[in-house]
């Protein structure tokens, strides 16, 4: 259905007065899994979003919200897709109170723009996300995942204190507030964080912030094999629980991260340790971790770098840095089960590549040139007893449906369907892209 088809006689056509794109070639960038919308709406403020959603609902048009499009690869192909709702122009700071350590921003602001603002006051939002110069706060909150430092910092849910959303029918609502601790009413911000845009459009977010640490240090140490790196990283995480990052990379992942700007890395299996705080404390934590690494048998030199942000971001970017036709997998599980899970993946996957393991929080990324749905199903079965949850981060559309990007829905599926029915009864938002057909 196109925008003009949807108009009923006597009513203004949908999105009248809003800034829209309808030329096919300009719409190409809004394609999701190869499906193009018939129109894109460029929202500049909340009232635009309210109108866009009210119009789309009235015309029964399915809407896919867009931020920086760094994770549009995630999810099942949309069942319907008529309109793109682009929030990237909504990129302003609404309210920033440095002394209160809180900030309110529009959803289209990028993570890097936010960090630049905060750095002026020696503050930061401790979230890692691939391609932070493009990724928007609305988008990364809708995806809702903790990153490589989730052991220390959790995910967007843990830093959000307030949110404004526009519901499927165009009604604007809010949740939470601007104070760092608040139990007034249900915590709807947590419901929307990680809902992949299926319940409403996130238009404004309030986060609590952290002071930048006085010292932030990274050490890289090469290992003979990736298995050695992984084992040493687990030992470091166990011995030095206050580490602020504890990663094992395969040789090809390290090389790719180097190409992306992590100059401290070389093409060899490597562990990367990060610690921050006061200088003496960061040094103490790293030396604890190092002693565990040495005991685990790694004897390579300690390589240090002053390019902390560049190095870390390059590694974070690897999460979604995969040739288009390849399949990128993400596994989350209790960290003690990482080694067993890695063996299973190695066994079943065809030429697995670019391994990243966050050894302190049980997070693993790997890619493969191709994989079939049966293999994914078998892996999920075998990872079940290890409490592993395997999702497909990016894959060619033809694999997504048979392999099921999210895996079988857990015991909460019934409640999730109920929630979707309450918030988006006509499946206007991102239909079919989320768990269990939601």
């Amino acid at each position, binding site marked *: 259905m196109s925008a003009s088809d949807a108009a009923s006689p006597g009513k203004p056509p949908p999105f009248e007065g809003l800034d829209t794109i309808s030329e096919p070639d300009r719409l190409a960038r809004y394609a999701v899994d190869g499906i193009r919308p018939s129109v894109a709406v460029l929202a500049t403020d909340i009232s635009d979003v309210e109108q866009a959603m009210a119009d789309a609902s009235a015309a029964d048009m399915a809407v896919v919200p867009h931020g920086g499009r760094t994770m549009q690869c995630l999810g099942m192909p949309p069942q319907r897709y008529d309109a793109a709702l682009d929030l990237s122009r909504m990129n302003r700071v609404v309210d920033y109170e440095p002394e209160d350590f809180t900030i309110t921003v529009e959803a289209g602001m990028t993570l890097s723009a936010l960090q630049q603002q905060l750095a002026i006051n020696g503050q930061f939002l401790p979230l890692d996300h691939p391609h932070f110069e493009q990724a928007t706060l609305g988008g990364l909150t809708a995806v809702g995942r903790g990153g490589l430092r989730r052991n220390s910092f959790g995910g967007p849910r*843990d830093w959000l204190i307030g949110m404004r959303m526009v519901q499927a029918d165009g009604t604007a609502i809010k949740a939470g507030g601007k104070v760092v601790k608040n139990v*007034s009413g*249900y915590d709807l911000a947590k419901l929307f964080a990680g809902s992949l845009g299926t319940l409403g459009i996130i238009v404004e977010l309030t986060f609590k912030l952290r002071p930048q640490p006085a010292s932030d240090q990274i050490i890289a140490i090469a290992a003979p094999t990736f298995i050695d790196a992984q084992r040493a990283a687990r030992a470091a995480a166990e011995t030095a629980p206050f580490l602020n990052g504890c990663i094992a990379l395969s040789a090809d992942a390290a090389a790719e991260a180097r190409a992306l700007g992590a100059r401290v890395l070389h093409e060899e299996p490597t562990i990367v340790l990060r610690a921050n705080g006061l200088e003496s404390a960061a040094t103490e934590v790293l030396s604890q971790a190092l002693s565990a690494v040495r005991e685990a048998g790694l004897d390579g030199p300690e390589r240090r770098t002053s390019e902390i942000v560049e190095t870390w971001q390059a590694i974070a970017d690897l999460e979604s840095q995969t040739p288009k036709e390849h399949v990128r997998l993400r596994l989350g599980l209790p*960290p003690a089960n990482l080694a067993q899970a890695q063996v299973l993946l190695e066994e079943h996957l065809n030429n697995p590549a670019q391994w990243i393991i966050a050894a302190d929080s049980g997070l693993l990324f790997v890619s493969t040139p191709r994989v079939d749905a049966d293999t994914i199903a078998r892996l999920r079965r075998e990872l079940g007893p290890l409490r592993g949850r395997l999702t497909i981060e990016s894959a060619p559309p033809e694999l997504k449906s048979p392999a099921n990007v999210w895996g079988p829905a857990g015991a909460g599926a019934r409640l999730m369907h109920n929630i979707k029915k309450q918030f988006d009864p006509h499946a206007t938002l991102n239909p079919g892209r989320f768990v269990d057909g939601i």
Partner: protein
Amino acid sequence: MKTPTALVLELIEAIGDDAVVWHDEDLLVYEYDGTIDRGNPDVIALPADTDDVSALIRIANKHGAPVTPRGAGTGLSGGALAARGGVIIGMNRMRQILNVDAENKTALVQPGVVNLDLGIEAERHGLAYAPDPSSQRACTIGGNIAENAGGPHTLAWGTTTNHVLAVELVTADGEVQWIGHDTRDEPGYDLVGCVVGSEGTVGIVTQALVRLVPRPTAVRTMLAVYDSVRDASNAVSAVVASGIVPAALEMIDKMTIAAVEPVLNTGFPLDAEAVLLVEVDGPESQVEAEGARVESILRRFEPREVRSATDHEKREHLWAGRKGAIGALGQIMPNYYLLDGVVPRTKLPDVLDAVYEIAERYRLPVANMFHAGDGNLHPCLLFDEREPGATARVLDAGGEIMRVCVDAGGAITGEHGVGLEKRDYLPWIFTDADMDAMKALRAAFGPTENFNPCKIFPAGHGCGEAGHQHHAQQQIAKFGPKAFV
């Protein structure tokens, strides 16, 4: 002799007569929690396991009886009161710590486990359970989850919602499901994030997988005594601005000092206006350096004295005045009304001035103890309920204090919950559309209208004149209905 109702008989048949309490004199103890409201349950059921909970909810639903979950009854918003009678499901018999997984830093517990007992068990594994509400010697993990409880040490580590990974939940329809995941990697909506802080209005948690954090290798507690609340507040701001995130940052005022000193021998000078407690923890070298830095900041604001301790016993002594504050208030007046407003931290000094002004105008002594680091105030209005009109004055003053918090850009509750007590004030911070969205979430959990009814949202039908609804209505009329943050 009272005769058991059909409902009582069926509950007894389901879980045995030693697990069902229904005689009037036995019900008395379940009429109260930590607030000044009351509820009158018809029957109390004490389940032994998840199946019992499910069966009890189904039986209550069949009889159209309201269900109210209850932990230790220490709640401070009326969440565990049977506002419309019916069945209270008391979780106290499900009190096992089922497993501590030290390597993955998690614990699996039943909801009746006492907060402090989990803390002690975690300690044996070199770990800690971060949320530590002041009632931690009595309050249970189930209640903590319902209320999203905080505590002094949530400044650095976050509140209960940051520490609950997965729960077994019996929903309002009696269905049992595990939601969440060990490392929050279950795809789908954050159901656990919805359940934590839902004040027992969508279901009953029957098991919880919680996150434990590494126990700091060193801890240093500092206590500074000031001659003005403003000096103490400025010291708080300076500590926070220095880039240090203390583990705790607490304050008590003169009235609280007067209450605690004679009972707890804290050694606080009775003419001091404020006592500040700051704790830093972490690796040894960090605690040493941060401790020195915090101490020098505290000294910049002309304290009368600064005390410092690193060993457990001495630290506990420094904490005694804060942790024992509520209990000691009985020294001054027989009753107290404890508020829980939260404001942006920089607004604390102005809001405190307003709190003192309001208390004076209503002729009520007020003791302040609060989580200064995160802007969470606990003004405690002291009164004697036997004095005619005293309760009414307290409730009116409480409403005004909440309004001051809202006008300062804050909220009506930081960690105690809305419950019965503050439900009529919710429209001060949320529109009808906001509250409709919350109700939509509640509806997704089943037939919830009878499940812990009359809580959180402004009173509906059948909730009667519970508690101080009347006063709330007056205050709302006085200040206008809406002041959206």
